[in-house]
């Protein structure tokens, strides 16, 4: 949409074009009156897309869940909640929710799902492997999707993904396209965010706090080999295809912000 580059050429990023393009040909300092209108239109389109993503994803629910299944999820994700609610209108299934210590957002998810008369069971994170043998599908939401198809999701998801792989249970990630990030993971530690360890070990246990370290990471890295399917507002994709979608979504100059 930028003046000087058409949409089609943006998407066909073949190596030939990259080599022969020779750098930016337009001069950004020349005034371009319709720019403001264009930008506002683009933002409006983006807003409409953002509002519709959850519904788009939920519409695909019936294709993936069949009757009498046991579905497992972790923590609280609005996308997954909409997905499951939509499927529950026509199918009968059970959901097991792993609460996500230490914040226990899984509790809220379970309460909301049970209000729609979906049979929900809440269990501790420690029992993920134990109940995995009974689970048919694992459906989770995520915070970010990285360019290689990996996830940055709430802490505990890596364990869930490994357990699903061990039992050969499909792992489905419901995430809208705006969560896609153009960055590849450089080093697994580089994205971590920590919160107050008070959740893990409260300050009331004061005397020993000076002698120990307490960690409370918020996010987990899940490698792409453990994921079976991504369901997004544009349809279902395999993790190996994510890098292509990224090139549609981001201009190559924007990869490193």
């Amino acid at each position: 949409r930028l003046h000087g580059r058409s949409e089609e050429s943006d998407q066909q990023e073949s190596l030939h074009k990259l080599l022969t393009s020779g750098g930016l040909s337009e001069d950004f300092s020349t005034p371009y009156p319709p720019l403001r209108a264009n930008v506002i239109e683009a933002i409006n389109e983006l807003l409409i897309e953002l509002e519709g993503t959850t519904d788009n994803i939920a519409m695909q629910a019936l294709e993936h869940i069949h009757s009498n299944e046991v579905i497992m999820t972790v923590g609280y994700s609005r996308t997954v909640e909409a997905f499951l609610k939509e499927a529950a209108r026509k199918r009968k299934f059970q959901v097991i929710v792993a609460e996500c210590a230490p914040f226990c957002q899984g509790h809220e998810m379970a309460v909301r799902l049970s209000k729609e008369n979906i049979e929900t069971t809440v269990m501790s994170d420690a029992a993920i492997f134990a109940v995995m043998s009974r689970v048919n599908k694992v459906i989770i939401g995520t915070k970010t999707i990285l360019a290689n198809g990996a996830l940055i999701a709430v802490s505990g998801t890596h364990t869930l993904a490994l357990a699903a792989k061990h039992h050969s249970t499909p792992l489905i990630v419901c995430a809208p396209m705006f969560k896609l990030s153009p960055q590849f993971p450089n080093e697994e530690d580089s994205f971590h965010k920590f919160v107050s360890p008070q959740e893990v070990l409260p300050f009331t246990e004061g005397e020993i706090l000076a002698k120990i370290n307490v960690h409370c990471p918020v996010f987990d890295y899940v490698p792409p080999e453990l994921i079976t399917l991504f369901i997004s507002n544009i349809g279902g994709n395999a993790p190996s295809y994510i890098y292509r979608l990224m090139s549609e979504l981001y201009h190559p100059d924007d990869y490193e912000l």
Partner: protein
Amino acid sequence: RFGLQYSQGIINGSNARCIALLEVFKQLIRDYSTPPNEELSRDLVAKLKPHISFLNQCRPLSASMGNAIKFLKKEISCLPDTLREEEAKEKLQDTIDKYLREKIVLAAEAISRSAFEKINDNDVILVYGCTCSGEGGRQLCSDSPLGSTSPTVSCSGRPRREGRETLHRLVRKGIHCTYVMINAISYVLPEVSKVLLGAHALLANGSVMSRVGTSQIALVSKAYNVPVLVCCETYKFCERVQTDSFVSNELDDPDDLIVLRKGQAQLGGWAENKSLRLLNLVYDVTPPDLVDLVITDLGMIPCTSVPVVLRVKNVDQ
């Protein structure tokens, strides 16, 4: 009285339960007097039955307790008839003491010693929950001048949070510790060099039955190529086989899962909501391929040698 303590969870951990059970049996034998015209051996066994079923109702018996009871019954039935009542009771109490000492206390020390051999200097060790044997190993190596530099990570799972107990004990010994919840193990494992786990029982197909969450830790450790060592005394080996954690498990109080956040419990009214259930499992089963080594009082064996040990024990008896 023992039943009450036991069902409330005041006595916890399979070793502690077994020791307490044997103490109670000793008391029982002391207070026991043979009714006339009855044989000591047969009558005592019959008297034990209602007590055992009472305990079973308070809380299902653990594998270690089951083994101890089997041993006791065998001892009682093997008593020669010629002994007087007083002597018989003495003898029984002696055998119980010996069993306690050999199988539990000395075994724990043997395990600690073996575990000590496996722990090198500058190893970072992950411990899950609160296990007597795993901890014993850790403490022993902290007493030596070499071992005190190995830092330990104590991991804990809701709702019991037994890792805190381990944390306190280790800190008291002066070991440098880190504490995490079980969902953070993916973050911690790249820096860990060994994982020490305790076991509730070892099943005849090589699976390890232990506190819920252990199988997860073994799984993730395998993914990061960290060796998993399980410490277990031989009296906990049992004849049962189990492939998954559902077939026979214990359910704990589901209300323990409820947590108060800013003074409000999300799951507060869960009993009224008929679509909502809380599941609080106590044990889980770890498949044998996820465990690298089992440290017992007989030495260090792979998981698959458990039936061999059982057979040898049966032949001995």
